[in-house]
């Protein structure tokens, strides 16, 4: 893992549920099949209402997003248990979601898959930052710097080494919980 990333941010509001992250009609795609994984990425956040989110997260016809950091309000990832949600974001190229708060299963799935870092900000950054602003996420100090201000994020604690290892299985192997491959 790089020690910091700098990228344009994509900003969403409260209660972005898994249907908006990856709408149900794309769930027949199986994430462990390589081409279907890539396809899931191309549909990330396609369920956001167009009138509230005129900017496309993944450009029309593209497979990847120009935004490696997503900033969100309360309860990001609520709704279904579909792992397709963190996977779609990860496959699109997202490294981290910085949200005021997360829904439990989404948070857990980020950790289990190791697809992305779910940072709890406890702050309503979604009111302060705009889509397209450039931000730097510092993984050594758990800070986000944007528009000249630096915000302290809650450290990931116990789950950090699991994501660093690349998810639950790699972590369980490293720590000897299950046999090495």
């Amino acid at each position, binding site marked *: 893992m790089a020690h910091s990333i700098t990228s344009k941010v994509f900003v969403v509001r409260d209660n972005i*549920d898994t249907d908006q992250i990856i709408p149900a009609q794309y769930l027949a795609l199986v994430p462990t099949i390589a081409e279907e994984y890539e396809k899931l990425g191309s549909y990330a956040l396609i369920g956001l209402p167009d009138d509230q989110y005129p900017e496309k997260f993944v450009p029309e016809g593209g497979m990847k997003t120009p935004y490696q950091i997503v900033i969100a309000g309360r309860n990001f990832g609520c709704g279904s248990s579909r792992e397709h949600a963190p996977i779609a974001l990860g496959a699109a190229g997202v490294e981290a979601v910085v949200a005021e708060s997360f829904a439990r*299963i989404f948070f857990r*799935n980020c950790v289990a898959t190791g697809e992305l870092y779910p940072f709890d900000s406890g702050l309503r950054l979604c009111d302060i930052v705009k889509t397209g602003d450039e931000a730097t996420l510092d993984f050594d100090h758990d800070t986000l710097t944007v528009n000249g201000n630096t915000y302290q994020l809650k450290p990931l604690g116990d789950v950090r080494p699991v994501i660093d290892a690349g998810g639950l299985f790699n972590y369980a192997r490293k720590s000897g919980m299950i046999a090495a491959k």
Partner: protein
Amino acid sequence: MTLTEKILARASGKTHVRPGDNVWVNVDVLMTHDVCGPGTIGVFKREFGANAKIWDRKKVVIIPDHYIFTADAMSNRNVDILRDFANEQGIEYFYDVIDDPKGHWRFDAAKGNGQRQHGSHYSGVCHSSLALKGHNRPGEILFGTDSHTCQSGAFNQFATGIGNTDAGFILGTGKLLIKVPETMRFFFEGALPKGLMAKDVILHLIGEIGFDGATYRAMQFEGPGVASLTMDDRMTITNMAIEAGGKNGIFPCDQTTLDYVNARTAENGTKNTFTPADIDADQSFIYDKTFDISALEPTVACHPDPGQRKLAKEMGHVALDRAYIGSCTGGKTSDFLAFAEIVRGKTVKIDTFGVPSTTRVLEELKATQWDGKSVWNILADAGVRLTENPGCAACLGGPVDTFGRMNAPLKCISATNRNFPGRMGHKESQVFLASPYTVAASALTGKITDPREFI
């Protein structure tokens, strides 16, 4: 300890656990379905090897139910992936869409999605099927690759939804690391009055604490009011714990629970030994509140999230395009009977769709006669469009040819459980959640209507 703490302590071989502890629990049942099963199987094979065997072939339950009656080729393929895996692993509880274990599932679009296309092993919606087929047992640990897995908590189980990676881990090891949640207690007094249903109770509670009011927490339902609730009522309530962000919802075990579980395990020949968790004198809660359920009024959760609580009687100005009854939450036999009580002998004013949650519900609606007419025909004669193919259908939108899916920006009142934007199809469509009574009354008038006007 609270009910959740007691079950987690037992499953992790400890005498005591506290909220915040991370414990490895032994899993009693893992459920998966056609949307997350193929990915779970993919994770299992990638991590444990192409020839690996699952930890226990009697503890895995596979229930195709989500995208079944659609011509979408990938969805049909996904059911075949489940069948191949069930055969290879010798999984005993696989409720296949077709009867031929070597066959392929292909939906016949020419027949339409109203007419029966499933075989005799098929059951329908996963959570309803877990109960029906005797996979819910008090005191046990159940995980499922579906957020509404919390429904099984009605049976005094610890039950919660997980993703494919966690489920793939369980397939190989039979264990999972979880954090012990804090418990919120909802203490019920009184009994539901005429015209009110369990759905009103849970919509009221979610409105009370907010759509994320139970995030990371267990919701424990207790008190003298529980005795009057049937298992169907309890399932409706625990089903929606996740709509308040809850990790799980749980009821104590009483004679009603035991009668139901003993009947279902006997019927399907599933394991019938279990140890319920009973209520300790010494429990600590992060939230504790008493609710008089006899004082509730018909409740609606408005677009765009389940926490937007309103009373049905205040919402008469909302004109509707569609009504829908079905799903794990609102597609049980008791839900359809309540709906039929209201529409019987009348005609619905808006497009109204009915999807039984399981094949058993379908059979019961056809077999139940009121004045010489089956409830099924009473519904059809009232103008309700019914399908003989039980399953999730339009509850989560699904492929565009799904029965009842909203393919235009319509307003729908629904007996289902979730109403985030786009949930039932078109992303500009709107969903209002309500009890089967309220959905029925609203179907008759074309606007949101308090059902007590019709009772």
